[in-house]
């Protein structure tokens, strides 16, 4: 067991899979000798060599497209987008080619696209994207969104071993802010399974990514100040959704809040709310509520960014209001 940061755990997951399987390789911009913009691949180039840690031309379409091609003939590429925002330039390859390959051609397409995701770092409108909803709508793509170092490594290993294209959200805000215990022994975290992070019998909060940590903090305050116990669920995977867990925890308290960093309209929270309304309506004691970013681009200046994105106070206030419904 070792204590490591979120980004170290992600890197550990990639490293172990590269040691295990010669068909695994990395491709992206500046990921070689430089080690990547966030240093996720620091030391990889020196250890695995230029053939397996490929400094690509500045072209997301070529990086994702070449990953599709390599995966078609049995390789297991792990592509890095320098920021999740730039995946728009590789969007066509993911949506038109990667997502439809198995359905049309009945061929496995084992590839991972890593997306350094989200705000809270004053990156402005082009370095703060939460892109999950763009891909959530597309049949054929899996999406994972770990919030802890343990899950970061476990889901990375599962994503690389999966025979489908996996969109891997990495929350930049968490890269070096959180540390956790990560076992040395080989383990994986199953794609499609959420996790209970905090037990509670009064309300249920369903979330993922950076906002898991904000929600846990808000839940402690709510317990201390109001005596209300919130159950907190971390989805960990967004596609496929853990429908069974979502319905189970919704029925247990009858009051559900969905929290995500992505903006509200057309966000994943809407689909979760619809699922709960469809299948757990008779267990509900309140309308399903949502907290997400405002429907604006993510602005640059700190007071503007803080106003737009969810934070502990906004989540706490929504939890409080729901508990009193």
């Amino acid at each position, binding site marked *: 067991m070792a204590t490591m940061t979120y980004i170290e755990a992600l890197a550990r997951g990639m490293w172990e899979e590269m040691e295990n399987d010669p068909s695994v390789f990395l491709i992206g911009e500046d990921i070689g000798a430089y080690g990547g913009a966030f240093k996720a691949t620091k030391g990889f180039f020196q250890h695995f060599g230029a053939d397996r840690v490929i400094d690509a031309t500045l072209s997301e379409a*070529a990086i994702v497209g*070449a990953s599709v091609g*390599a*995966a078609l003939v049995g390789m297991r590429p792990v592509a890095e987008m320098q920021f999740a925002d730039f995946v728009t330039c590789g969007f066509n390859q993911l949506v*038109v080619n990667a997502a439809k390959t198995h359905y049309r051609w009945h061929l496995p397409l084992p590839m991972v696209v890593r997306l350094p995701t989200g705000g809270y770092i004053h990156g402005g409108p082009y370095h703060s994207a939460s892109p999950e909803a763009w891909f959530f709508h597309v049949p054929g793509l899996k999406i994972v969104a770990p919030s802890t170092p343990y899950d970061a490594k476990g889901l990375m290993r599962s994503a690389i071993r999966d025979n489908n294209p996996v969109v891997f959200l990495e929350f930049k805000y968490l890269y070096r802010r959180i540390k956790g215990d990560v076992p040395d022994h080989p383990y994986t975290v199953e794609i499609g399974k959420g996790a209970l992070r905090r037990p509670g019998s009064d309300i249920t909060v369903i979330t993922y990514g950076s906002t898991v940590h904000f929600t846990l903090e808000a839940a402690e305050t709510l317990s201390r100040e109001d005596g209300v116990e919130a159950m907190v669920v971390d989805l960990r995977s967004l596609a496929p959704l853990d429908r069974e867990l979502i319905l189970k925890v919704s029925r247990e308290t009858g009051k559900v809040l969905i929290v995500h960093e992505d903006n509200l309209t057309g966000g994943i929270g809407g689909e979760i709310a619809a699922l709960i309304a469809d299948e757990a309506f008779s267990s509900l004691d309140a309308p399903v509520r949502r907290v997400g970013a405002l429907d604006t681009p993510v602005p640059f200046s700190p007071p503007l960014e803080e106003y737009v994105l969810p934070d502990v106070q906004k989540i706490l206030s929504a939890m409080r209001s729901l508990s009193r419904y």
Partner: protein
Amino acid sequence: MDLTVEHKLKVYYYLRLTRACDDAILRLYKQGKMVGGAYTGNGNEATAVGSAFALEERDYLFPMHRDLGAHLVKGQTLRHIFLQQLGRAGSLTRGRDGTGHYADPALRIYGNVSHLAAMIPVAVGVALAVRMRKEDAVVLSYIGDGGCNVGDFHEGLNMAAVMKLPFILIIENNQFAYSTPTAKQHAADRLADRGAGYGIPGVTVDGTDVLAVYEVCRTAFARARRGEGPTLIESVSMRMHGHSASDDASYVPRALLDEWKGKDPLERYTRVLTEEGILDGARAAEIEGRIDREIEEAITAAMTDPNPAPEDAAEGVFAP
């Protein structure tokens, strides 16, 4: 390899088969027996057949919708061509996609998607895998005079050039992208000149001359096998039919069609073989008869194949 008499007759067979198969597809379309649209390669047969004929079995092919001849040369059966056209259960995509949009890994054929240029980076990725695994194979892909203006053309070809990958790209310059003439697609005289911008050879070839296409490809493939990287080939021909069977191509000047009719790839090659004494009327008739029988058998087999079960549509979005 230098072409033997046997090879030359094989080239003739494939040119003729391609033309006849396209004609049969059009016929089925007009009879209302086809599912969806029909796209032919009439005028492009020499490019498709000549280029694919220079490939080895171990090489990878990424053909386009004008390249039926390349599918056939690489070993695809007529039965599978028609099963795809008709969307039947036994087709290579099990009815999930049509026309040449299939993959046949055993033959190393990976078909196009409708966003034609999007397959260029994918083909480059196969070339990357080939290099990583030290396979002795090349990857051949095609694009049109319209598709070569999409970003994927630049991004894929540039990556292949920088990495010196065994990748060859043929621009089939057939004068029209749907209804848009080349003058409205690019300001350059020669599309092959783009090669210089990527630091790779750019070659223009007469796309109605099957032997010239074969030779240019042979040279490009040999260069790729030596590890010297990609070649961009511009093959110039004329799209003699509309973009699809629903397009009467009335925007194409009559005189232009008449001019290119005189350079018909099949007739041109027939003259070459006749002059060389390889082909005569009797031999040609015998080949034609064989082709007609093969096509009829394939159509009958495809027509008797069942349609997919409707509920099968929900299956297979994800791989196990």
